[in-house]
Structure formats: structure tokens, C-alpha cells
């Protein structure tokens, strides 16, 4: 019974913790501009993260070691450093975007300028990373993030024409007002937001923090196979809500407030309150995850003691990296760089760096020295390899599309 509860909690946390500022921005913006013409990318992205997160969780459960630790050992310091540099830069940008997202959620609830919240948010993120137990932190923000289900309820209560929606999702077209370059630019942004590198590092490091073993492989699979697709449905709900309410009015969202308007239109103040709670929880959760991921990646690469299970005094370098990363992230937002624009750049650049993150993981997951009989099956290798091809194509196309489409502007 206790195991069952543990599994249910893990799945619920995976659902609530799936969406972050990248999904909020990318799903709402694409829904408002392209209707459901890019819904297929959410499906592709969620399947991709399922394949690789399962691999990361399995590697951590069987070997008892996290991804970066093994990547450096298996592929050498040079390749490991390349992997680290690309992933750390993207994770740091994402951390800044998440801190900005938390501050914007608070601004929307209080109408006080978000910049005033940024130092407070940074301080709170650091305090939670430093003092709060891993399970408590992970479960609390994950469960609060479930408030975002209100967006799916709003879509359902809006009584859309489901047949027409399914048709537009399965027969994607580029709207006449949009260019093909902008369509593919946003496709890459959606892919980047679904498969952002920190998710894999946090998932595998979290498995080590929670002392997963071979006996937890089922928990790993259930979290990934049930939690992630249901979390992906929340991202899809945001897109559908925007397609139903914002697209017909020609609203091109550039603020978090516009992402909440469809929910409040259908469900009123209660819906709005839950949506704001959901925005706050999912950005807070992701801010914590990205801050810890910055510390995890560098400490694991250099072989320093890391994690929340050990006292901060025994992992000073890990704690210092987390602190410095939070300060840098908050500092970047305090330059008054628009957090929504920052998010857009973070997810698009994340897509450009994806092969560097996922190829080493695929190599490690095929090494019997670490995984014994739990190495990848032929099927999972085939799917993962197909994804790598997609990721390489997306990675190569990112910067040219960014320039041609003027960063999605036209």
C-alpha cells in the first residue's frame, strides 16, 4: 500500500512538475499564432523526453550514479566538458527565465513590478535548495503544479468542436499571415521546451538523491510513461485554450497575463486564481530544478560531493555553484531583459544544444559495464536514434531559422 502511494505521488508530481515557463510561453504563443497546427510537435517532444528520461532514470537506478558522472567517465573529459558547457549555459538561461516567470506570476497577482520580486524569488529559491528536504521540495511544487489542470477544465467547459480541433491538429497548415520560417522556428521552440536538457539531469540526479535501485525501475517507468504524457496534456491544453480564445481575436501573446485570459473567460475568478497558482508553482518548481541542475552538472563532472542528502558543509562547492547560478540568473533578469523573450531564446537555444545532451546519454545507456542486463533494448535504441537524427536536424536549423524568421517575428 505504501509503495502504491509512493508511486501515485511520484506520478502526480511528474504531471504537476512537467510544465515550466518554456511550455507556458511556447504553447500559448503557438496556439495563438498557429492554432493547433503545431500540436504534433508537443506529441513528438513528449515522446522524446519519455524515451530519454526513462533511460536517465534507469541508468541512475541501476548504476547508482547520475548522468554527468558517467558521461565524463565513459566518454572522457573532453567530450564531457563539451556536454557540460552546452548544457550548463542552457540550464543557466532557463534558470533566469524561470526566476523571471515566478516574478511575473507574482506581478500578475499583485500588480507590483516583477523586478521588485526578483531578488526575493532568488533568495527563496536558494533557501529551499539549501534547507528543504529533496522529497518535500519535489512533492510540494509538483502537487501545487497540478493546479494547472484548471486550463484543461476551461478547455472542456468551453465546449469546443472536438472534431474540428482534431482535424486541424492532424492536418497542420501554416496560416496565411505566418511565414514557413516562423512555423518551423516555433516548431523547434516547442521541441526545445519539451526536451530541455535540465529535465534529464534533474530526473537522473533526483533518482540518485532518492536512492533509487533496481527495485525502483517500475517507479521510474510509471513516472515517465504516465506522468510525462499527462503533463504533456497540460502543455497541449494551454495551446488549445490559446487557439480557442486568443487566435480568433488576433492576439499575439507577449505577456503571462494573456496566457491566463482564456481560463478566466471560461471559469471566472476561481479559474484565474487556480491558473495563477499553477503558473507560480510550475515556474517555482522549475526554478528549483534548474538551480539544482546547475550544481549537479558541474559537481558531477568534476567529481565533487553533491546533492541535498549530504550536509551543505560536506558539499560546499556544489552549494556554491547553486548559489552563484541563482545570483547570475536573478542578475540577468534584473538587467530588465524581458523574461518572456529570455524564455523564447532559452528554449530555442536549448533545441540547438540537445544532441550534445542526449547522444552521451544514449552511449552510456548501451554500456553493459554500467547497466548489465538493463541496457537499452533494440526498440528503445531505434526510437532514440531516430530522435537523435531529428535533434541534429533541429540543432543545425535553429540559428538560420532564427535569423530568417527574425526570431519568430515574421
Amino acid at each position: 500500500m505504501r509503495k502504491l502511494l509512493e508511486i501515485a505521488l511520484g506520478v502526480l508530481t511528474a504531471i504537476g512538475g512537467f510544465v515550466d515557463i518554456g511550455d507556458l510561453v511556447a504553447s500559448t504563443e503557438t496556439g495563438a499564432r498557429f492554432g493547433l497546427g503545431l500540436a504534433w510537435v508537443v506529441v513528438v517532444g513528449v515522446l522524446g523526453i519519455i524515451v530519454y528520461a526513462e533511460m536517465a532514470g534507469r541508468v541512475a537506478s541501476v548504476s547508482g550514479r547520475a548522468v554527468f558522472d558517467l558521461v565524463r567517465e565513459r566518454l572522457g573529459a573532453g567530450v564531457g566538458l563539451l556536454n557540460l558547457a552546452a548544457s550548463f549555459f542552457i540550464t543557466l538561461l532557463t534558470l533566469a527565465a524561470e526566476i523571471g516567470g515566478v516574478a511575473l506570476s507574482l506581478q500578475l497577482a499583485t500588480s507590483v513590478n516583477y523586478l521588485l520580486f526578483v531578488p526575493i524569488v532568488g533568495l527563496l529559491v536558494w533557501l529551499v535548495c539549501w534547507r528543504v528536504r529533496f522529497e518535500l521540495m519535489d512533492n510540494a511544487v509538483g502537487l501545487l503544479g497540478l493546479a494547472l489542470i484548471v486550463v484543461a477544465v476551461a478547455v472542456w467547459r468551453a465546449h469546443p468542436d472536438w472534431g474540428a480541433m482534431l482535424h486541424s491538429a492532424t492536418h497542420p497548415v501554416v496560416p496565411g499571415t505566418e511565414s514557413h520560417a516562423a512555423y518551423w522556428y516555433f516548431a523547434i521552440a516547442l521541441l526545445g521546451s519539451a526536451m530541455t536538457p535540465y529535465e534529464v539531469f534533474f530526473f537522473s540526479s533526483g533518482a540518485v538523491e532518492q536512492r533509487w535501485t533496481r527495485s525502483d525501475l517500475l517507479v521510474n517507468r510509471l513516472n515517465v510513461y504516465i506522468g510525462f504524457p499527462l503533463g504533456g496534456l497540460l502543455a497541449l491544453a494551454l495551446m488549445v485554450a490559446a487557439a480557442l480564445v486568443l487566435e480568433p481575436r488576433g492576439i499575439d501573446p507577449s505577456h503571462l497575463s494573456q496566457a491566463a485570459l482564456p481560463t478566466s473567460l471560461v471559469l471566472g475568478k476561481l479559474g484565474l486564481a487556480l491558473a495563477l497558482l499553477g503558473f507560480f508553482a510550475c515556474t517555482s518548481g522549475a526554478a528549483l530544478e534548474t538551480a539544482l541542475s546547475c550544481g549537479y552538472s558541474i559537481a558531477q563532472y568534476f567529481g565533487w560531493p553533491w546533492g541535498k542528502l549530504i550536509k551543505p558543509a560536506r558539499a560546499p562547492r556544489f552549494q556554491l555553484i547553486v548559489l552563484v547560478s541563482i545570483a547570475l540568473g536573478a542578475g540577468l533578469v534584473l538587467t530588465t531583459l524581458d523574461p518572456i523573450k529570455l524564455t523564447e531564446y532559452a528554449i530555442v537555444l536549448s533545441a540547438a544544444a540537445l544532441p550534445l545532451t542526449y547522444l552521451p546519454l544514449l552511449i552510456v545507456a548501451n554500456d553493459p559495464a554500467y547497466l548489465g542486463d538493463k541496457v537499452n533494448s533494440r526498440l528503445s535504441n531505434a526510437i532514440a536514434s531516430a530522435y537523435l537524427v531529428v535533434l541534429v536536424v533541429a540543432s543545425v536549423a535553429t540559428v538560420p531559422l532564427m535569423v530568417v524568421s527574425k526570431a519568430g517575428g515574421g
Partner: protein
Amino acid sequence: MNQRHHRHAWVRQRSRLAQAVGLGLVALIATAGCTGPVRSDGVYASKAAATAEAAASAVETAQLAVQEAAAGELFGRSLAQTLAEAASDAGDAQATFDAIQPPDRRSKVLRGQLDRLLTPAASVLADLRIAARWGDTAALPRLAAPLPKLAEEFQRFEEACR
């Protein structure tokens, strides 16, 4: 010795190339969303259309927010924030467009036409922002009355420019 010298030179050359490529990429990314100089009336017209589209989006956002506020579906602070952002978006769109030098007389006429829409839109959105900040939600529908016509005109202007 000679071999080592060649190797060092090759490493230095490669590192310079990597630096140049890196700097080039950063410059490309940094300028990807920037407004460049305009040399033809066609490009100027497309910028005018994009400005009209951005202003229409702000106007429609304000309309939706006022509609929700009238139905009691928005909290006062969220309403004030949404309207402040809409006003700021319209103002930014106008400021960015007005900063572009029209390349010829035809473009200057176009600039005048768009400004005749942007100025009243910015003014209405500013009035809405002020009323929302004062908590005067009852006045919002009256203040927002010109918005549907402005939204239509922005749309017509945009279609004509595309």
C-alpha cells in the same frame, strides 16, 4: 621542434576560427529580432503592417480584459496589470515604428495614416489603464467603446499593406 611549432600554430588558428564563429553566432542571435534600416517602400510597408498587427493585438487584449472585468471574471490587480501591458505594447509598437525613417514620400503618407490609428489607440489604452488602477471598473466599458472600430481599422490597414 618544427613539428611542435606547426601544431601550436594550427591550434592557435583553430581557436581563432572558433572564436570568430562563436562571435558571429552571438551577433546573429543578438540581432535576429532587431529592426534594421529600411531602404524600400515595400519593406517600410511590411514594417507598418507588423506594427498595425502588434497594435491590434494590444487593442484586442484590452477588449477581452474589459469584457471579462465587466462580467466579474478578473481580479482588479490582474485587470490593471493586463491593461498596463496592453497600453505599453501599443506605445512600444508606435515608438519603434516612428523611429524608422520613411524611405520616400509614399512611405511618409503611410506613416501618417498609421499614426492616425496608433495615437487614439494608445490614448484609449492609457485611459483604460488609469481607470483600472483607480479601481473604476464601471467606467471601463464606456472608455473601451472605441476599441472595436480601432481593431477593425488596424486589420484593414494591415491587409492593405501586406
